[in-house]
């Protein structure tokens, strides 16, 4: 059959090189932090790395069960592009660098990292006395092998993650260190390694078939694999020779349940300790129970209404602004999303590189909206708002609320048109702006925490999914593409100011990740959707 001739890996591999790699498809990858501000950071090697009893207060040796929407598609850390898989992986496999909950780059298997003078290369000094779960010591060869396994098709297999280490061409083992070469300066190389590239053991991988690697695990992390039943359960136990303090939890079990009410019931019945994506209508039930609470964090997904600049009435800036004034986003966030959302006023989210905190917001002002409609010369226009159903949190309800607010204006009327997500995406992806609906609701998740990538894809004249064209914005985004660090962030902030003024979207909300958590646990939700069992303690 046709789909047998290309496998998933080939698919993902081919899709590599694309910077904003998740976005519409709905799966935000595990990433965090502000891309370029971390470059040139070097840490000393003097950390508290003694292993032994946990130093965290509270009860130890408890068992954790975490229920996600789905289970890993396999256990090879280099062979997936999904958050649920990544969450399981991060307990067993580690990278040379890592990030804290705020996105700050921290040391992990490497104690120091620096650029090599005069070369397009960086150097990682590795930590001593790190062991894999099979007891073998971590070597520089293992680290170099892992990097090459991702970026080089000839090492083992074609990893779908090669573009996550964009610009990296290879790695070489030195004495207790690894030299990583790039095809250019690569301003975000440390940021990439802080998020991606799990380290595997060379000899372990080479002794196994691909199918066996996808069913077994051998990392350096705080937990090791106990048992794996495909589609049912991944059970991990604490690794007692971990190079840091051992984890407070004795075991972590991951399960999958696609149905949100099933997850909530598991939580309330005490069968699961953390469940993902609690829908707003269930929040009350969780909060009013004796044994569970809600934990929420802003996600990397922005929900907005795209407006095609090339058709009337959306070609009028006054009309676009009018729509922004007409919609009471705060009310939608409170009444539709139960407060688990934040209003936006620009394409870039507050956690992202390039966010401009000084821009005015479009507060609810129906009189002004009606005036602007008159001013635009499009009074009496009838519109249609296309929306997917069930793709984003309460997408249809949000669209209906937007239509309701706009219908309240005396001089505009709107109907909502429900769309299948697949057919809507087909229209958005043709590359022709004429194929897109004039006005539609969509969400965009950006795993790289980079506002530049969002605006380039969605609002630059030649962007893959653009609905907008503005010379000034184009120029700023082109400039940002050739800059790095703080200069680039400043340019992106200017670009966001243009977007705020021009109103190419009806700005709606930043979606939240909402979790249900056993009240006996100490855990805080993170923006990057990572659930780190190592950081969980019990009261």
């Amino acid at each position, binding site marked *: *059959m046709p789909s047998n001739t290309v496998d998933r890996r080939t698919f993902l591999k*081919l899709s590599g090189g694309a910077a904003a790699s998740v976005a519409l498809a709905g799966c935000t990858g595990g990433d965090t932090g502000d891309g370029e501000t971390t470059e040139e950071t070097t840490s000393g090697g003097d950390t508290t790395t003694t292993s032994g009893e946990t130093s965290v207060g509270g009860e130890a040796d408890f068992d954790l069960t975490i229920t996600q929407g789905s289970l890993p598609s396999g256990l090879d850390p280099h062979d997936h592009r999904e958050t649920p898989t990544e969450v399981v992986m991060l307990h067993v496999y580690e990278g040379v660098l890592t990030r804290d909950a705020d996105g700050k780059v921290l040391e992990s298997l490497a104690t120091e990292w620096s650029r090599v003078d005069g070369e397009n290369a960086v150097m990682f000094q590795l930590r001593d006395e790190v062991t894999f779960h099979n007891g073998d010591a971590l070597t520089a060869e293992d680290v170099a092998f892992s990097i090459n396994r991702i970026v080089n098709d000839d090492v083992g297999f074609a990893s779908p993650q090669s573009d996550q280490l964009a610009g990296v061409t290879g790695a070489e083992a030195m004495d207790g260190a690894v030299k990583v070469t790039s095809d250019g300066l690569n301003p975000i190389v440390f940021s990439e390694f802080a998020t991606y590239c799990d380290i595997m053991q060379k000899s372990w991988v080479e002794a196994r078939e691909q199918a066996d690697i996808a069913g077994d695990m051998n990392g350096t992390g705080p937990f090791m694999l106990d048992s794996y039943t495909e589609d049912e359960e991944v059970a991990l136990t604490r690794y007692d020779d971990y190079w840091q303090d051992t984890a407070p939890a004795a075991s972590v079990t991951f399960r999958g349940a696609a149905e949100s009410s099933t997850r909530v019931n*598991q939580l309330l019945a005490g069968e699961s300790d953390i469940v993902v994506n609690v829908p707003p209508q269930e929040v009350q039930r969780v909060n009013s129970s004796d044994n569970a609470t809600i934990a929420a964090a802003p996600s990397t997904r922005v929900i907005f209404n795209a407006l095609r600049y090339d058709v009337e009435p959306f070609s009028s800036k006054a009309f676009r602004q009018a729509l922004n004034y007409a919609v009471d986003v705060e009310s939608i966030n409170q009444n539709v999303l139960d407060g688990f959302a934040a209003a936006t006023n620009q394409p870039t989210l507050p956690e992202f590189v390039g966010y401009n905190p000084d821009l005015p917001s479009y507060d609810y002002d129906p009189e002004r909206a009606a005036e602007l409609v008159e001013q635009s010369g499009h009074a009496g226009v009838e519109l249609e708002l296309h929306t997917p159903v069930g793709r984003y949190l309460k997408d249809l309800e949000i669209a209906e609320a937007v239509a309701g607010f706009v219908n309240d204006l005396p001089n505009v009327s709107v109907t909502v048109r429900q769309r299948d997500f697949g057919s809507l995406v087909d229209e958005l992806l043709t590359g022709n702006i004429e194929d897109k609906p004039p006005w539609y609701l969509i969400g965009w998740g950006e795993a790289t925490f980079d506002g530049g990538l969002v605006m380039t894809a969605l609002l630059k004249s030649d962007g893959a999914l653009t609905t907008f064209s503005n010379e000034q914005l184009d120029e700023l985004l082109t400039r940002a593409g050739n800059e790095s660090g703080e200069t680039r962030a400043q340019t992106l902030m200017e670009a966001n100011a243009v977007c705020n003024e021009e109103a190419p979207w009806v700005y709606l909300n930043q979606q939240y990740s909402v979790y249900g958590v056993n009240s006996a646990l100490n855990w805080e939700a993170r923006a990057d959707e990572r659930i780190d069992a190592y950081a969980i303690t019990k009261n």
Partner: protein
Amino acid sequence: MGLGRFLLKRVLQGVLVIWGVITVVFALRLVSPGDPANVLLPPDVDPATRARVIEELGLNQPLHIQYLDFLAGVPFGDFGTSLVSNTPVFSRVLARLPATLELAIVATIVAVIIAIPLGVISATRRHEPADYGATIFSLVGISTPNFWLGVMLIILLAVQFNVFPTSRRPVGLSMVFSMLAAGQFAGAADGFVNWLSHITLPAITLGTYFTALITRLTRSGMLDQLGKTYVRASRAKGLPETLVRYKHVLRNTLIPVITVIGLQLGTLIGGAVITEQVFNWPGLGTLIIDSISRRDWPVIQGSLIVVGVGFVLVNIVVDTLYAYINPRVGFD
């Protein structure tokens, strides 16, 4: 017509039906919104790469070639490879089949155990409170949506009173049997209790509609038979009423009931989707829903074909049994 020829004819008809199923399943992918390449690739992939993927997937091939390729694999259990897990579809589907069969069969058993006595009581005590009770039960049972009943049972019996687990199937019946075979009786007993506690709520949920249906059917069948001449003759002959009711009347009543039970079993195998989803039961239904949400077409197609084949097989068995039980029908 003899049994052999009858079976041959039914099997050939079944093959035709399965071919139809395969064709429809193939066509489903074509008419479904959402190009597989678009769903699987990030939105900003350059057109050349997109074209390459479409080519490697075979999506640029003429339709008849794609169709023949697809058809050729099925007899050998080759439904392709899952785009998500990269494992063969056939083994994935087979791994899910026991859970669905367990659920469908237990639901049927529960339904039969409750429904037939209820139907008999209802018919023999017509217009008495027992009859009204059974009628109300059937009415409620037939009109209660599966998913609602499932969620209510979970909230009440699992979350509130903690009598049953909310969901999942940690132990399969095959595991219980293999423990039994290995002589681990204590383990097998524990496993069985565990299995039973997990399957109870989903089986009740799935079986309720079915119970109601069979109750109605048994009742009307009984009433129909009770008015027949042979019943009066038997009574006139002085046969005890119990014997008349349970040996002669019930037996004749059960012939159409068995047909319905068989056909419903087929429906349950395919129709357990919602119940499985609510209880996170790792059967074919959950697999189909998960695959649809990930647009994993090979798995969706493989699962639907297996459900179709199952339905055809059940039908053949039911027809054969029917002809066997009821001599008047015969194998023609």
